[in-house]
């Protein structure tokens, strides 16, 4: 049943909370009014096999280690982000090492990837589901620091919820004005074919063949 416009206006109070909480409140309000996520968006959400909420993902810890570019030649997957992360890389040898979120970055010095510079840290924010590739001409040492950004994932989730709710809002208005939609009557019957009572005519009539000479 469509919500009445008066209650909708009452529900949208001025946002006096923190931005993240405000967006969450706004998204909850809209989603309670009928906003739904597309299947693609739903697949992008964190796994909820155990029923946990996105806030539970804050238990992820910061990781730091040394990575060696032992695979030389073609590009290799360096990191696959299963959540939003901030990744900091610092080349500790002379290189050359190129990185990119695209796989086609060879040759290393071609400029298709970003060349790491010795002793200069470089920082990226990787969204969930993205991958980082590297390509190297020899064995190098790269210092890696990975920090999870769970609030970015929550924020992304809330923004998507809000966007989904806002895109569904005109439909809800129209539904509220026109009343509930009639149930579908199914597809219309075909207008051609044998089952329609209007069979196709043959272009060449079927007749008895003549006598062969």
């Amino acid at each position, binding site marked *: 049943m469509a919500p009445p416009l008066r209650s909708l206006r009452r529900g949208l109070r001025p946002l006096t909370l923190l931005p993240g909480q405000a967006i969450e409140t706004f998204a909850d309000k809209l989603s309670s009014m009928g906003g739904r996520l597309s299947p693609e968006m739903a697949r992008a959400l964190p796994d909820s096999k155990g029923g946990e909420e996105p806030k539970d993902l804050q238990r992820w810890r910061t990781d730091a280690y*040394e990575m060696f570019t032992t695979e030389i030649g073609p590009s290799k997957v360096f990191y696959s982000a299963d959540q939003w992360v901030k990744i900091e890389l610092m080349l500790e040898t002379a*290189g*050359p090492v190129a990185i990119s979120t695209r796989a086609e970055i060879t040759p290393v010095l071609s400029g298709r990837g970003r060349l790491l510079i010795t002793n200069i840290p470089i920082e990226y924010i990787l969204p969930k589901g993205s991958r980082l590739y590297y390509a190297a001409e020899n064995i190098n040492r790269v210092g890696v620091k990975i920090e999870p950004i769970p609030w970015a994932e929550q924020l992304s989730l809330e923004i998507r919820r809000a966007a989904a709710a806002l895109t569904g809002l005109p439909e809800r208005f129209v539904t509220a004005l026109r009343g509930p939609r009639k149930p579908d009557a199914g597809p219309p019957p075909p207008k051609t074919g044998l089952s329609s009572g209007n069979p196709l005519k043959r272009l060449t009539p079927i007749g008895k063949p003549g006598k062969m000479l």
Partner: protein
Amino acid sequence: MTLPTQPGSPESVLGNQEYLRIFQPVLSPGDIYEIDSSTRAIYIGPNSDLAEIRLAYYDKQSRDPTLMTLADVSVNGPFVGRLDSLLATQYQGLGQPGRILAYPVDIVDPAYERPTGPTTVPARRYNVPAQIDLICALKDLPSIPEVRADRTYRFPRVPFNNDGGMDDDGSTDLVIPIYGRRMVTIQLITPVLTEHETSFFIAALQPGQPVEPKFLGSIVTPSQSVTNTQTIVYRASDQWSSRFGDGVTADPVMPTYSYTEVNQPLAPAKGLADLLIINIRPTDQDPPPGYSLVDLFIKLSDREA
């Protein structure tokens, strides 16, 4: 024949080192060292006997996929800048990876033998092997010293025969690499009761032919009852404007000669060389049997003091 071994570049990277160091004796003039890691600077290390080393690398700037570019590295001329070892890139038509190669520019003769006459052949010869010390900076660009560390050799109890034999003169040759060294200090502790002569030569090697060394001078020590310490200092810039001395020859009839140098048009200097040869020869007319021993302390320096 044992091929030269060298530390691998990947071990230095995987072992969290900040530099790759190639430090080992040079076995032949054809030794080539492979560097599999890119570097930020290549320079001569503190313990190197060699003063000049040549680099050959794949040059991305040349646009010629068959060109190998050369660069020389010397004690006061390091290669500063990123030099890539491109293992995934191959020279066109060769299939060889574009790694960095290093080899000595200085001529190395591990078995140098001083040319002598038939009766002045030394009974013994010791060749001190030349060391290569090449440092490749992997991470930080260091403050590179343009001088090698002083090199000290201590040779206690160097023997020489008190009398010549059938095929030799009983002497001992000591061949020391001094590539590009500018100053040599020698402390010579002589034995007792044996008259002997210590001669000093320098040799600038040439490819493919025996090199006659340059005679610097000699010291004749008479038979004494106590040991004596003599000090010899040789600087590359020492002038020979007027000098008297005795030289040795390859002529068996006249093995020594006296010479005088005065007012030459170009002031001759001792100069730089590759090898220092010290010959200790018995000169006793009535030699005691057996052999005698000399203690040598030799200090090489890149700077004159």
